[in-house]
């Protein structure tokens, strides 16, 4: 298993797709910066420096920028990367024919399957670590850090204004890497399942992403309120709960468990299909 895992990590590190994902995140952060900058200019009529904002001179800092950036990236940019990275794991190998070369070696299918899945987890985790660190770094260099002020608004985190001290907020960003990875694993595992079902990596990634977006939208429409508890996307937003002034531990655990249950279900379904699959590519 370790040899298999080592080889999968080696392949991941040599894959262009991983670095393209990083590049996509960097581009997104730069776009976010530009968006924040022009937004603040519009609000202040271009009279003040970038680091002062329209609401509160200490409100806008590198930490709030990172929080907003993460919030928006989690909507689509990171899920796209995750779907592509996980969706190409098996379908990509099937497409290029290397899957049959691997499976003519004396390794069990389940060992290969789990090695590839662990590699997917690692890729999601590395994306998030990179993304959060890059945002924090950009925030620090351009506007500096400070306390994280929270207001009721688009983030939908608090009902009334609250604040996290700088050190506490940095710790929460650390937590968010783990909750974010756990949450995104639901989507990654779905894409992984699609990667077993389809032999075209694009179809696998696109199907997973389409399901994610579709269920996300359905989950937000009041017509489907009765469906909401059964959608795997409903609980995926639990990752943000670590930014609430008081972390709702029980609720967070409950929603994390539900995400975990979906991941395990997708993973087992994929394993059953992969074990029985005829490799004809």
């Amino acid at each position, binding site marked *: 298993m370790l*040899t*298999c895992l*080592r*080889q999968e990590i*080696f*392949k991941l590190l*040599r*894959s*262009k797709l991983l670095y393209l994902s990083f590049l996509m995140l960097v581009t997104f952060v730069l776009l976010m910066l530009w968006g924040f900058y022009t937004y603040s200019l519009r609000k202040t009529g271009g009279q003040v420096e970038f680091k002062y904002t329209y609401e509160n001179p200490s409100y806008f800092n590198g930490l709030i920028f990172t929080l907003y950036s993460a919030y928006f990236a989690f909507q689509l940019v990171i899920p796209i990367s995750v779907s592509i990275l996980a969706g190409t794991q098996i379908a990509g190998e099937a497409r*290029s*024919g*290397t899957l*049959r*070369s*691997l*499976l*003519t*070696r*004396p*390794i*069990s299918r389940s060992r290969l399957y789990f090695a590839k899945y662990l590699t997917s987890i690692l890729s999601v985790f590395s994306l998030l670590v990179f993304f959060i660190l890059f945002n924090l770094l950009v925030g620090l260099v351009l506007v500096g850090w400070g306390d994280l002020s929270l207001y009721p608004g688009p983030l939908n985190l608090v009902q009334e204004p609250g604040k996290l001290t700088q050190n506490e907020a940095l710790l929460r960003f650390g937590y968010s890497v783990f909750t974010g990875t756990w949450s995104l694993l639901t989507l990654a595992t779905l894409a992984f399942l699609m990667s077993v079902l389809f032999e075209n990596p694009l179809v696998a990634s696109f199907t997973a992403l389409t399901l994610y977006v579709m269920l996300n939208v359905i989950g937000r429409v009041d017509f489907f309120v009765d469906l909401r508890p059964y959608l795997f996307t409903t609980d995926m937003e639990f990752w943000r709960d670590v930014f609430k002034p008081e972390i709702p531990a029980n609720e967070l655990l409950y929603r994390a468990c539900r995400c975990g249950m979906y991941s395990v279900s997708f993973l087992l379904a994929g394993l059953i299909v992969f074990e*029985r699959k*005829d*490799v*004809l590519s």
Partner: protein
Amino acid sequence: MNRFPIETRELTKTFDSRTAVDRVSLQVQPGDVFGFLGQNGAGKSTTIRMLLGLVKPSSGQLSLLGYNLPQCREQALRKVGAIVDAPAFYDNLTGLENLKLFSSLTGHIAPHRYSQALRSVNLFGRQNDKVRVYSHGMRQRLGLAQALLPQPELLILDEPTDGLDPQGIREIRQLLVDLAKQQGLTIFLSSHLLHEVERICNRIAIIDQGRLLYQGTVQSLLEPDLQYKVRTDRTDQAFQFLSEDLRLPVFRNGTDHLYLRIAEADIAKVNHSLVSQGFQVFEISRHASSLEDIYFRLTRC
């Protein structure tokens, strides 16, 4: 099952309603260079994929090196080197990195074995090039190196000379002959190149529409088909004389030759009869059908 390198019994694979392999029972003996022949879609690749555990049989039994599959697939594959279809590699990695990656899944390979394997397929010196710049022939040879690295007891090769130039085909043919002779390797290969198979294989199986049509030595397939080729000054009259007056089994295939299927002892009598009828006999020689002739006859192409 016995410890035959390959043994299948009533091996069958159906895809939906189509039977790709129909009750195929193969027996490959140690040291055999076994040719597996059939047209495209005859069931060769599906059989090979079942042997390697890539495709699950619908029914029947199979064993590799005495290990029953699929139960003991991993133990069996430790001693098997294989190429299925066109060898596939990671294009973004070098030839050597690909070899290391695949062979690491088999077990430890001593470093000198890589250069040995690369030399044996004439790829030494190109091992640090990315596979994406390799030609089809180079990939084929890298595939062979990959199959040879674990020092297998059995090589399973699906069209190993596919896409190679004549020089490449000759090199691979020689390599396979040497491997079989010097290392006692058992080789199971499928090919479209019938004359190549005739040259290097001692035993063959012919499969058509999923069914096994023949299995045995190349010699025993060719021998019953022994004929005598006769050339005279008047082909049409000689044909009439031999077939109608002497009532002998004589055939012609549009050339100036007649083909007689008779016992060796009768040759002198035929010669005498022809000469006494005023025919000038230029040639009477043994003529065995080629594997290609018999193959096309068996598969009714």
